[in-house]
């Protein structure tokens, strides 16, 4: 059992979820409340990772952040190193890839909140931020929780993107999904079964706990 890979995977999933919470909540709130004509375009951009094969998305990230790209040149000027084959690289790819898994449930939850309550809060003098914090969030937390759990679970099981961007470096970019794949490739089916079983038990318990916390059904 590759515990270094397990620890790395939890770190990647935890940080991905955290970033998606910080970036995704305002984005989803904007998507749920805006009346701008180009909202469908932003909606579509957020959903693109759902239809691109992970390895293709990973390939674009690899090409788009390598040392010859603009982003790669800027990055290597500030930090010593490259985006591909680093933890920061797989984290960035992970956030991008999981955007729809967090933002879509968030936005669905926000959209389901009665608009009259928002208008009442604003009329009573609450700021937009306070309305979000004290009216919207308490009414839509099951959807927010669902989005965060989905993003976390999805990152734990992520394979194609990390394979393309990571370079399989132990302790840096070798996640549990890659370690299992390596075991299978090396015909070590026993090792693969063991790690897969741990992953399966983990996933089922996280999802079961989440679902039991929710009184409502998931808005998915």
């Amino acid at each position, binding site marked *: 059992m590759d515990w270094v890979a397990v620890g790395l995977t939890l770190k990647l999933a935890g940080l991905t979820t955290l970033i998606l919470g910080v970036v995704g909540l305002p984005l989803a709130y904007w998507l749920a409340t805006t009346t701008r004509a180009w909202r469908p375009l932003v909606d579509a951009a957020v959903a693109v990772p759902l239809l691109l094969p992970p390895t293709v998305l990973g390939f674009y990230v690899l090409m788009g952040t390598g040392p010859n790209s603009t982003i790669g040149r800027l990055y290597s000027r500030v930090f010593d190193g490259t985006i591909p084959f680093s933890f920061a690289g797989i984290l960035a790819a992970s956030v991008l890839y999981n955007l729809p898994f967090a933002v879509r449930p968030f936005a669905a939850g926000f959209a389901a909140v009665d608009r009259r309550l928002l208008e009442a809060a604003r009329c009573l003098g609450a700021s937009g931020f306070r309305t979000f914090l004290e009216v919207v969030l308490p009414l839509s937390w099951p959807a927010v929780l669902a989005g965060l759990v989905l993003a976390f679970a999805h990152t734990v099981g992520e394979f194609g993107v990390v394979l393309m961007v990571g370079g399989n470096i132990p302790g840096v970019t070798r996640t549990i999904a890659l370690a299992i794949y390596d075991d299978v*490739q090396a015909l070590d089916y026993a090792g693969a079964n063991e790690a897969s079983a741990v992953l399966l038990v983990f996933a089922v318990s996280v999802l079961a706990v989440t679902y039991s916390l929710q009184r409502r059904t998931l808005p998915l």
Partner: protein
Amino acid sequence: MYMVRTLMAVAASGMLAAGQTGLPAAAPAPAVRIAAAADLKFALDDIAARLAKRQPAIRVQSTYGSSGVMHAQLRQRAPYDVFLSADIDYPRDLVSRGIGSDHDLFTYATGRIVVWVPASSALPVERDGLRALAGARRIAIANPRHAPYGKAAEAALRNAGVWTAVSPRLVLGENVAQAAQFVQSAAADAGIIAKSLAVAPAMRHAGRFWDVPPDTYPTLTQGGLILPWAISREAAVHFRDYLLSDEGRQVLASYGFGAPGR
């Protein structure tokens, strides 16, 4: 859908075999379905095109991938007629499990490895060979744990005495084609990859390479197997014979493969 068609084809060929008085003239052109190692990508396309000119009746249909994955699929009776592995151990293992017979096991080439750097690289690989890699930040190789080309790369690095210096800077491709992609995209500075990929059109003009001396790594014996469930055994045998013929070997040689050892 594909499975259904395959099953129907298997059933049809079974009926033809059972009643030899059937209608062989009405049978469609037999396809040889090949599960091929990733390093054969360019060479095998060429071989298939030449064979099609010579014997239009035989249609070659290739699927490329990692030999280890194909081995696992073939253990579950994947619908292929011929397995061309990057490592003779995989088809040999299938035979030991009762899939295919010893007579249908063959070696068709020897894999070679090269150090490949992008055209703009300043690394003096032509002068210093593997020792030039000490100046590289990221070096791409196939995963030595299971990819035959990765094992060869590790052995060559150890032989050159640079393994301890280089190993913390390795990035591992899932197979040798992915290692090539890492360095071709310039995300890695150098790579140790299959010569067959280095001489392929997409890479030949994008960089330079240096041949790693073949006596510094274990021989990469590439082996194959005709599978017992081949739709047309005759077509599969034709394909294998052409691959092993002088012409087939010349094509393989032009793609950087060595002659098959014994």
